[in-house]
């Protein structure tokens, strides 16, 4: 046992003497949480619109003011002829152009309906969709007010009361704190372990370790021990940031939360060990961790894009992405405050994955011993 602790100490020294890596290790989660909190957002705020007003009367001015004063839009340009439309879109800064037809006010009084056209740069379909629904919302409101206030027309009106459960203000933090945790813990642990083990192989020091009286299990356990503690600290930092800076609630049991985090880390570690047993050198280990983990964890876990909207083969594929289960767990515990009864299935899946990766690694590792 004493030998084992000596070995663990060696590993810690290895990590701590590389100050730059250490800095990155703790800088990364902080930077990522801050970026997701403040930068990556789909919210529409002061989106730049152009107005092509062929009528230029009191009503079109009023409607334009109403749209601009909503806070969602900012009037960036006035267009005077048809040719400018295409040019405006091609320059790329403006994503929406409002076109009022000639004699707008007159038509509103007499013929009806008066038409307003919304032209959208739909290269980003999602953004175009949002802009369109915000703008038509404002215009329909205006249109409805004319009916009710000016003309006093009765008619059946269905009022809609919406309640946003669990997240009243539609904050993004509920998505990105669990997502960031899943991503960072996975990458840091899996990448660090796989690389540090392959490094020993590549530089030939692995053989030295193997002939030492330490058992192979002890070698692996000793190698991953520092990473477990570092990753766990990382997880706590992310949770604290989410809680203190972004008001992420913790409705459930915090011990359960930390326990599940630890389980996820151990799972990522065993994945890292597995990667190291199949990679001949650090470069390969890195590319495998990078490609097999970075984009799939980001895209298939439900972190950014909801899994339910994906085509079924991808939904099926997402079942082997560990991050997916971890994100479900975290959301359940933190936001909904549900207990273990609601999440035992996900816990079991993570546990099974850990065992599978460990089993495979032990099998591969023994082969190398001969």
């Amino acid at each position: 046992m004493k030998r084992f602790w000596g070995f663990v100490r060696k590993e810690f020294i290895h990590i701590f003497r590389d100050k730059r890596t250490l800095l990155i290790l703790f800088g990364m989660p902080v930077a990522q949480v801050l970026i997701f909190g403040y930068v990556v957002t789909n919210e529409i705020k002061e989106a730049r619109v152009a107005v092509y007003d062929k009528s230029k009367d009191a009503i079109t001015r009023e409607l334009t003011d109403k749209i601009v004063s909503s806070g969602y839009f900012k009037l960036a340009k006035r267009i005077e002829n048809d040719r400018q439309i295409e040019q405006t879109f091609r320059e790329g800064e403006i994503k929406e152009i409002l076109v009022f037809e000639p004699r707008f006010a007159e038509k509103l009084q007499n013929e009806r309906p008066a038409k307003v056209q919304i032209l959208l740069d739909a290269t980003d379909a999602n953004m175009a969709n949002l802009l369109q629904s915000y703008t038509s919302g404002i215009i329909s409101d205006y249109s409805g007010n004319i009916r009710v206030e000016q003309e006093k027309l009765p008619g059946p009106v269905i009022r809609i009361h919406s309640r946003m459960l669990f997240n009243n203000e539609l904050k993004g933090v509920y998505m990105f704190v669990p997502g960031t945790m899943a991503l960072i813990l996975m990458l840091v642990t899996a990448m660090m372990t796989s690389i540090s083990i392959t490094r020993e192989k590549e530089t030939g020091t692995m053989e030295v370790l193997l002939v030492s009286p330490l058992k192979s299990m002890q070698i692996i356990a000793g190698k991953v021990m520092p990473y477990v503690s570092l990753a766990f600290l990382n997880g706590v930092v992310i949770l604290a940031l989410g809680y203190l800076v972004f008001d992420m609630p913790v409705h459930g049991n915090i011990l359960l939360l930390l326990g599940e985090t630890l389980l996820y880390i151990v799972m990522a570690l065993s994945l890292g060990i597995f990667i190291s047993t199949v990679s001949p050198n650090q470069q390969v280990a890195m590319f495998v961790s990078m490609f097999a983990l970075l984009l799939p964890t980001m895209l298939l876990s439900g972190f950014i894009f909801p899994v339910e909207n994906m085509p079924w083969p991808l939904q099926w594929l997402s079942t082997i992405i560990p991050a997916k289960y971890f994100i479900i767990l975290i959301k359940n515990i933190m936001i909904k405050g549900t207990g273990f009864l609601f999440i035992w299935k996900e816990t079991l899946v993570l546990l099974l994955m850990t065992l599978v990766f460990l089993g495979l690694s032990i099998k591969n590792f023994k082969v190398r011993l001969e």
Partner: protein
Amino acid sequence: MKTIFFILQKEFIQILRNRTMLPMIIILPLAQLLILVNAATFDMKNIDLYVADKDLSATSRQLVTKFEASPFYNLEKRSFNLEEGHDLLLRDEADLILTIPQGFEHELRTEHQASVQLLINAINGNAAGLIQAYSSRIISEYNQHILVEWAPGQSQNASRPVEVVYSYWYNPEMNYKIYMVPGILVILATIISLFLTAMNIVREKEMGTIEQINVTPIRKHQFIIGKLLPFLIIALFELAFGLLLGRLIFDVPIVGSLALLFGFTVVYLLVILGFGLFLSVISESQQQVMFVTFFFMLVFILMSGIFTPTESMPEWANRVNVINPIAYLMKVIRMILLKGSGFLDIWKEFYSLCIYALLSLSLAVWRYRKTA
């Protein structure tokens, strides 16, 4: 010239003979492109709807039918029991509960107004916003419908003072994939070129082979050109092949000039390669260079506007993006491919990147010493 050619030859042999690296550089990224583009969608489909209809009148049933008819909704269950709905919401088996109160039709007829309630699982704020917008649209349309039906005297037009028509330019089918393919391509080309360069010289350092090169009469610039050119070629090849796949499989339009796109990409890659080389020169181990590179890359990718438009980012983020090379290409590749923007529309980005490339390459050359 001849010396550079020999270094190039050496590098290519080293890359091509590595049977594990080769598929990782070529096949893995492209397979990812094919698979992951399908995952990247904000389209709401299969919204699981739970209806608590306490009115059970002709009107309330008609309203529910409208939801059923919409391709976005999936009617999970219909009952009077709100508790059960809450439970389903808690288990993520329902996204939305529509509650129609008792006396809905009666109030609508006599008092001309009645309410319905939407309870939305809003943990994903984005999706919740969309669910609300879709649902409101369906209810408003139904409202419009009964407005005309119940008041036969009025013409349809009189009830609509202003009509909104909209058209989606460049992408009338609202296909999100053609937006994501160029984005993911940029990421993949960047990962490949940045990591390969960043690890290259550190690797030679770690293995000790750098000293052998240092004692040869190879000049500094020859060495650096020889080191960078292979990765430039690989990344361009990757981009070309990825574009071809995108064109054939995802119908990504190529409206603008490909020559312009590739010209711009070469300048972009010079920035990235210079950056990678710089990191490689100042790092001591592969593990270290990898983590440093990884950090910058993740920050740059997230801020580049791949998932969310840079326009909705705060002012300071846009200022930070001035030094984010990925943001330039992310914007320009989509402009050229999807909208056919020409050089006049992108000259600002082009010249900024040119200056950037110059800076990053000189930084790398300046820091590189032929002494170990």
